[in-house]
């Protein structure tokens, strides 16, 4: 079970959050609402069979991506696993290119070649979107290595799920990060389940998953209430500072919760009893009611006098309209052609360089 628990500290008063303007706070709320509405819309389109394959929804976890990404400077980079729509929108990717990618259209962010699990926007320091559990963890390390090699003061935020912490690639990455003082932040988004297997059935640990970092000499920390955007910013902010100032890695574990299944094709995530599935409707309802990141932040901002219920309604309405427009955009866009199969495989071929024109690269008829 995730360790989501009410914060005992009021993180809105910490330096990093006190520095936020009212406009910035409304923007953060808007970012979370846009992710929620985009994914709700995507789910509807999935049910209408507008897309194939998997759709791993981030609904319930929005404060993690939005809070973390809000701390990024010019030389800070983000990479994540397959539950990647939230991070994509948080770094500023447009709904149109994201929805079109889900629809497998040529106007998608990856030209319809990547799909739901493989969104990328290197111009926004967003390096995907990776399908193999834990496979992105050495890549995130490489971004940090690249920054240090180039002498840039930045960091790599590498997100992973609680199911990824048992992969070898992750442990190899931790060893190298600790050994070489690389400015990488591994953010474990612990939503309690690696697909249908609860944390207690999948991981051996002492007090938490992040604590394993201690064995590699890496500082670790925990966000107990990952639905509190302020707490996320406070804890991730300290790690970013450590990366920038000391070029040292950090492992963070953020307790969070996903409302939907592992992917939308997960029949056993919301049953009446634990005999029928791996979690119950009651459990989901408990988190929805008590730990909703959008509800939580909305309430705080209203209390602070930063926004009003009416304004939030307007934000939601705008996000719904933006989502609808992205569905129309995706619907009206063309699919890639059979010729597109053979582009974006080799850079030298695409750019028609001498190297790309020399020898046979493809072995079709």
């Amino acid at each position, binding site marked *: 079970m995730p360790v989501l628990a009410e914060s005992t500290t009021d993180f809105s008063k910490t330096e990093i959050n006190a520095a936020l303007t009212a406009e910035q706070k409304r923007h953060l709320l808007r970012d979370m609402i846009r992710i929620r509405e985009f994914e709700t819309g995507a789910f509807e389109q999935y049910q209408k069979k507008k897309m194939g394959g998997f759709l791993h929804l981030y609904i319930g976890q929005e404060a993690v991506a939005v809070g973390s990404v809000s701390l990024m400077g010019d030389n800070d980079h983000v*990479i994540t696993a397959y539950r990647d729509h939230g991070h994509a929108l948080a770094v500023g990717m447009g709904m149109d290119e994201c929805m079109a990618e889900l629809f497998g259209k040529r106007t*998608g*962010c*990856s*030209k*319809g*070649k*990547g799909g739901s699990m*493989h969104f*990328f*926007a*290197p111009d926004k320091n967003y*390096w*995907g*979107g*990776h*399908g*193999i559990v834990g*496979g992105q*963890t*050495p*890549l*995130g*390390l*490489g*971004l940090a*290595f*690249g*920054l240090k*090699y*180039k002498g840039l003061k930045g960091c*790599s935020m590498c997100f992973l799920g609680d199911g990824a912490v048992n992969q*070898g*690639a992750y442990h*190899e*990455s931790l*060893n*190298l990060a600790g*050994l070489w003082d690389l400015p990488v932040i591994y953010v474990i988004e612990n939503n309690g389940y690696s697909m249908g297997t609860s944390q207690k059935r999948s991981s051996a640990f002492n007090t938490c998953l992040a604590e394993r970092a201690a064995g590699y000499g890496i500082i670790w920390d925990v966000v107990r209430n990952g639905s509190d955007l302020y707490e996320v910013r406070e804890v991730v902010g300290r790690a970013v500072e450590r990366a920038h100032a000391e070029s040292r890695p950090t492992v963070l574990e953020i307790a969070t919760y996903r409302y939907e299944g592992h992917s939308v094709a997960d029949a056993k995530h919301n049953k009446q009893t634990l005999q029928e599935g791996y979690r119950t409707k009651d459990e989901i309802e408990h988190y929805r009611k008590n730990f909703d990141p959008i509800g939580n932040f909305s309430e705080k901002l209203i209390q602070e006098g930063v926004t009003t219920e009416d304004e939030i309604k307007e934000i939601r309405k705008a996000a719904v309209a933006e989502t609808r427009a992205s569905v129309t955009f995706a619907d009206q866009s063309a699919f890639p052609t059979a010729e597109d199969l053979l*582009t*974006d*495989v*080799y*850079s*030298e071929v*695409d*750019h028609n360089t*001498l*190297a790309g024109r*020399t*020898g*046979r*690269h*493809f*072995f079709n008829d």
Partner: protein
Amino acid sequence: MRTITYRQALNEAFDEEIQRDPNVFLIGEEVAEYDGAYKVTQGLWKKHGDKRVVDSPISESGFIGMAVGASMLGLRPVCELMFWSFYTVAWDQIANNAGMVRYMSGGLINCPIVIRGPANGGTNVGATHSHTPENIMATIPGLKVVCPATARDAKGLMKTAIRDNDPVMFMENTMLYGLEGEVPDPADGDFTIPLGVADLKREGVDVSLIAHGRSVLIALEAAEILSAEHGIECDVLDLRSIRPLDEEAILETVAKTSRVVLVDENKPFCGVSAQIAALIQEKAFDDLDAPVQRVCSIDAPAIYSPPVEKEQLPTARRVIDKVLSII
């Protein structure tokens, strides 16, 4: 022309490329302070320092994946696998990340990385250390695969591989490291060899022997014996790069001789020669006067026993027998 070893030729290529481009760095197990398990990187750490020549712990998935990530930011890592056989523990990083990140990002991300090291049998190190995975690498569209047979080719192809904007899997050979060959002097200018261009290493008229890597030397040895003892003259075509592949050169030699024996250290099932044979029957069927023949490693895990391992790999004797069977 001056003569240096295959090992020195590679070392020279690294040295020159490290000096030419600040983004080029070497990384691998024992490549720096130890001077390389096979001394291929000898002296480079002393000359270029910790930043450019990096010792990695034994952690192939970790450091190769890290290098892929660094290459996405524009660095040009040259990663050493102490044996190419160890690709198995880094396979997800090589296939899914290096091989596919460009495609899955719709061309937004490049991966200009070189992964290199020896890929050969014949040194009695058992099945786990004797893999020749050029066929496996070449099945991934997005990866390029190079297998030089001589010192000259090793240097020229390595320099090109480092400059290439796509991931290049560079297969060397511990049995070739000490062999000498003519390599142009750096004083005479920058020396590179393009990928995708085969090299006709011997000219003949009767049979085409097509090979890559050390098998080229086996083919040349067989060709000399066939000439001396049987009066049969062979073309020996060195593919040099597997992907991209010089299809024109293959079809040219087949059209010339009408008889082909493929020499390939891969195992026969889905080995590189299986692809070449398919290509020849598709595109040059009418040129052939005999079925395409293959000499591959015997289809079993690499055996340890030294005298038997010699026989498991392609030998000049087996090549000669195949040639005689189709003449």
